[in-house]
């Protein structure tokens, strides 16, 4: 297992390097950059030469006048820039052009809140999907199964942002409350306190349900299908015939086997949930990194967009790593075919 652990870690490093190259290329693909767009804007407004000189200074300051490869190496921290070796590797996320602040400061608490929401959503998906999936599979074609199937299809078919809008509307019209935001207004821009944390937990329920609905529905369908496959295998029939108690006969192998896609999905679920939460965050005014990323991509704020994309990629790669290691451990550890081993 140690060997496998090391192999997977070793693969992660070049994977992240390739992702960083792709991310850099993608954020450079649109013609021009934030500063050249800003320069055009200033020219059209007839701005003074001082402003233009400032932009020229910023271009040199942020190494935008250098070749692409050098820009990439400086951004990653592999090559010295105007401030020496100071890139992602050194923990410097760069400067946001829109906010004229370091990206780290702009992102601030949003990163932690995004992580909290997405982690809670994944937890919600697993907690809800697991019992329903098992129930649906063990009571196939019962009224409960049909009911959950219907709810599942509705969950799959309803876009998250639409559900968010509907909930916003009805909460306001019928209960007179606003479910937007992730904390009461009085805690905005305030230091963290117990009351602020409580307020965040109070507000989290709706976004978690909204973001997690489609994932839950998909997971229920997948678990149900996998468990049904397992339950129809001969060993389950044999176990029943031999008088193995129903619950033991279910937990011992079929559920363990059908858990594989559950675990394998950790890696996929993470980016899905994060990208799925971007529009919901806009609709519900959630202070997460999603809206920031969208804004950065739209206005070509390359350092902010690049840093956020790299963070999401890192989460995905870590998710994949965790799911791979868990899969290796969870496997029933039976070699089906014969022959030599590694």
């Amino acid at each position, binding site marked *: 297992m140690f060997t496998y652990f090391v192999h997977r870690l070793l693969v992660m490093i070049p994977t992240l390097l390739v992702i960083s190259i792709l991310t850099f290329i993608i954020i450079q693909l649109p013609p021009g950059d934030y500063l050249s767009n800003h320069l055009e804007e200033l020219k059209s407004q007839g701005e003074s030469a001082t402003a233009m000189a400032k932009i020229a200074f910023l271009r040199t300051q942020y190494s935008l006048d250098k070749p692409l490869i050098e820009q990439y190496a400086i951004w990653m921290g592999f090559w010295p820039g105007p401030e020496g070796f100071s890139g992602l590797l050194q923990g410097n996320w760069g400067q946001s052009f829109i906010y004229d602040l370091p990206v780290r400061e702009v992102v601030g608490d949003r990163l932690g809140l995004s992580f909290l929401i997405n982690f809670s959503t994944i937890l919600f998906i697993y907690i809800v999907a697991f019992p329903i999936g098992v129930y649906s599979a063990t009571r196939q074609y019962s009224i409960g199964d049909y009911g959950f199937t219907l709810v599942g299809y509705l969950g799959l078919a309803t876009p998250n942002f639409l559900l968010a809008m509907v909930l916003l509307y009805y909460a306001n019209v019928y209960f007179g409350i606003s479910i937007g935001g992730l904390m009461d207004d009085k805690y905005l821009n305030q230091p963290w306190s117990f009351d602020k944390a409580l307020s965040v937990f109070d507000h989290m329920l709706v976004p978690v349900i909204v973001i997690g609905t489609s994932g839950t529905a998909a997971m229920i369908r997948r678990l149900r299908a996998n468990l049904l496959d397992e339950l129809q295998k001969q060993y389950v029939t044999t176990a029943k015939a031999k008088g193995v108690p129903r619950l033991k006969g279910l937990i011992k192998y079929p559920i363990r086997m059908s858990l594989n896609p559950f675990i394998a999905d950790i890696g996929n679920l993470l980016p899905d949930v994060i990208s799925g939460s971007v529009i919901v965050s806009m609709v519900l005014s959630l202070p997460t990194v999603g809206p920031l990323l969208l804004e950065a991509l739209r206005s070509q704020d390359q350092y902010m967009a690049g840093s956020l994309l790299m963070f999401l990629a890192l989460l995905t790669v870590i998710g994949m790593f965790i799911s791979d290691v868990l899969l290796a451990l969870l*496997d029933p550890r*039976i070699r089906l*075919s014969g022959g030599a*081993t590694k």
Partner: protein
Amino acid sequence: MTESFSYAPRNLIADYLRALAGILLSFLPLLLLNRLSVIVWILVFLLFLFVCYGMRTLLRQVTRLEIGETGIFVIGPFKRSIRWEDLGDFRLRYYSTRRDREKGWMNLKVRGKGVRLSIDSSIDRFDELVHLVYAAARHRHLVIDPVTGRNLQALGIHVPVGEA
């Protein structure tokens, strides 16, 4: 008659290369870091892990297993042995991360009198080694769990009905 087993050189070379790549990939970025940060700690942890991996590979290179009529002996810097009369546990597991369960690896765990040996299938003539240890386990009338029984069969070792 005593049989000797050691880790195949081609596997060891690959492991050395992996350890070296890991050490370089985690050490070189450390040279570019000028202040203590989370990244430094992560890289130091990775470096430690790859160094451990390299040392384990080295340990495997200088270690060999001997299976004789009296027991199983680890000959190398850390000498250990399990005499057949002390053999208390015999488990053969198969690990795979692929959906089709191919390209995995096996691991044999034997235990006796407080000594535990874990042998990976990357060792040369693993099938033969398993066969010899299983023969000793049978002789000791050890209970073989069903998973081990199935894995033994996958290696072409006959397990009598009712034994696993």
